[in-house]
């Protein structure tokens, strides 16, 4: 762990990213303390600019507080990003592990399915899935997971292919371990580091997809999110630029921080890769 941190710390940008992410997490966790009101509530004069009428970042056309929306929206973005990524990693490991471990026909079949999902234009597919299932946290998570797992499946398959003939795996076979146990307890832990790296980058992509869906009006109607704020503010662009601008900056900073962390994790977990470059 100490060695990991020493290597991670060498990438300054990644440390900065971690700092930013902690700030955003803190913001999301304390949202109810600083803004106890429901972010959908109308709390003041509509279309007040930043620093006007007691609004830090202004208010929208209905008098909702933009700053309150941003801190409450942070929860939505991070939560959906994280859960959707976990679900898609789960699907990806399932497909990739079976394809790589068993090879042959199983591999052919699973990889064909993966290929089909990789070919389908992912954002339109996500739109379609949410539209059919009706917008809710659940449908958004499922839609993002369904369009993001093929990358994980390919990665896990490659790792399993290269690990399954190693000596320690053969030793497991010799002592009569079951296939499932070899896959889960022996091979999978050995390919965790690339999965962690790809997972961290997927959280960033998931947040971008979620904001895009919410912008198009496919967000959960009961939950404040950054994409929804921007979508709701776009008609007021001429008179109230701040309604769209600040939530967008929040998305930009969050996604940037997570990407930086992903690169740092890559440097720290796959040191050989770094030395080769």
């Amino acid at each position: 762990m100490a060695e990991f941190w020493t290597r991670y710390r060498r990438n300054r940008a990644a440390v900065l990213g971690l700092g930013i992410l902690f700030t955003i997490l803190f913001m999301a966790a304390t949202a109810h303390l600083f803004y106890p009101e429901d972010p959908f509530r109308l709390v003041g004069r509509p279309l007040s600019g930043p620093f006007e009428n007691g609004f830090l970042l202004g208010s929208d056309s209905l008098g909702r507080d933009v700053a309150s929306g941003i801190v409450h929206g942070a929860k939505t973005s991070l939560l959906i990003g994280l859960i959707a990524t976990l679900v898609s990693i789960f699907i990806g490991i399932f497909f990739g592990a079976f394809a790589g471990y068993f090879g042959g026909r199983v591999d052919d079949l699973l990889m064909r399915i993966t290929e089909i999902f990789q070919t389908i234009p992912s954002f339109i597919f996500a739109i379609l899935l949410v539209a059919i299932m009706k917008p809710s946290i659940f449908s958004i998570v499922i839609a993002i997971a369904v369009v993001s797992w093929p990358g994980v499946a390919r990665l896990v398959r490659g790792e399993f292919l290269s690990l399954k003939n190693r000596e320690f795996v053969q030793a497991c076979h010799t002592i009569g371990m079951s296939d499932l146990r070899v896959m889960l307890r022996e091979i999978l832990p050995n390919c965790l580091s690339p999965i962690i790296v790809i997972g961290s980058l997927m959280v960033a992509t998931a947040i971008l997809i979620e904001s895009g869906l919410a912008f198009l009006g496919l967000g959960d109607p009961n939950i404040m999110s950054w994409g929804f704020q921007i979508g709701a503010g776009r008609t007021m662009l001429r008179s109230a630029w701040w309604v769209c601008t600040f939530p967008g900056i929040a998305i930009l900073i969050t996604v940037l921080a997570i990407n930086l962390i992903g690169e740092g994790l890559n440097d720290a977990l796959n040191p050989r890769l770094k030395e080769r470059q």
Partner: protein
Amino acid sequence: MPRSSKIFRYVSKRLLQGIPIIIAIIVINFFLLNLAEGDAVDVLAGEAGSATPEYMEQLRKKFGLDQPLPVQLAVYLKNVLVLDLGYSFRHEMAVQDLIFDRFAATALLMTSTIILAVGFGILLGLMAAMRLNTWKDAVITVFALITYATPLFWVGLMMIVVFSLYLGWFPTSGMENVAAFYEGWDRVVDIAHHLVLPTITLSLFYLALYTRMMRASMLEQYGQDYVVTARAKGLTERRITFVHVLRNALLPVVTMAGVQVGALIGGSVIVESVFAWPGLGMLAFESLFARDLNLLLGIFLLSSILVVVVNLVVDIIYCFLDPRIDVE
């Protein structure tokens, strides 16, 4: 066997591989249609205001909706193969006609985006690789990082704020000034004027992508043996870069341009709805609001097929570009 007939065999093999993918996509489409609440008859009844259960039953029979699922699937497959994608009750038009009406606008936007993104991406990547570890390289890298993290719709809205509302250089939305009744060259100029902001917005993400790829690809080529040979021959660095390294570094970027078409279609839904560009993306956005599922599925199907076809075409172009590619 001569190379030309090998390529022919390779192409037909790839064509055959594309067919099951397309059929699978059609089947997925069919099941999504069935997953949705209500069928076409419910929609029709809703439009009409009132309908007796007997009448709805009769309609279901007429559309074949009372048949078992496999039969319906077979009928659906047959319909799609003859390019019958169903009927849009909102627009009162066949889905395929609507799609073909709007296709040209999207094709225009996508073509200009690809040209801009690939062109500038190659240029910036080349610059970054030649000025490795200088401030120019750092600026280009930071630009790519930030662009990766920015949502497209927000870039579009900010472009409108700065360049349309504040500076007044470009129109905020639409594809042309319909009220002006421009003809000939004036109309071309008008459309180009409207095209600028959507193109820049859509191309930013891909610009960052191609820049990073081009930089990495150039650096990889610089490490190859043939570069050492060229240096030993006494060629100038300039000549090595532009004649030898550049050509080889371009290949992976060309492939990437093809692979990214699927993502580009998704991006165009966002960009078109921000700028009210009257293409397929805008149509998808409208159909979302109108709950016009038939239309949305049609757009989805067509864009999936487009991705399969483009990937195929890129593969074929690729084996003409690079004679080393094994087409066995």
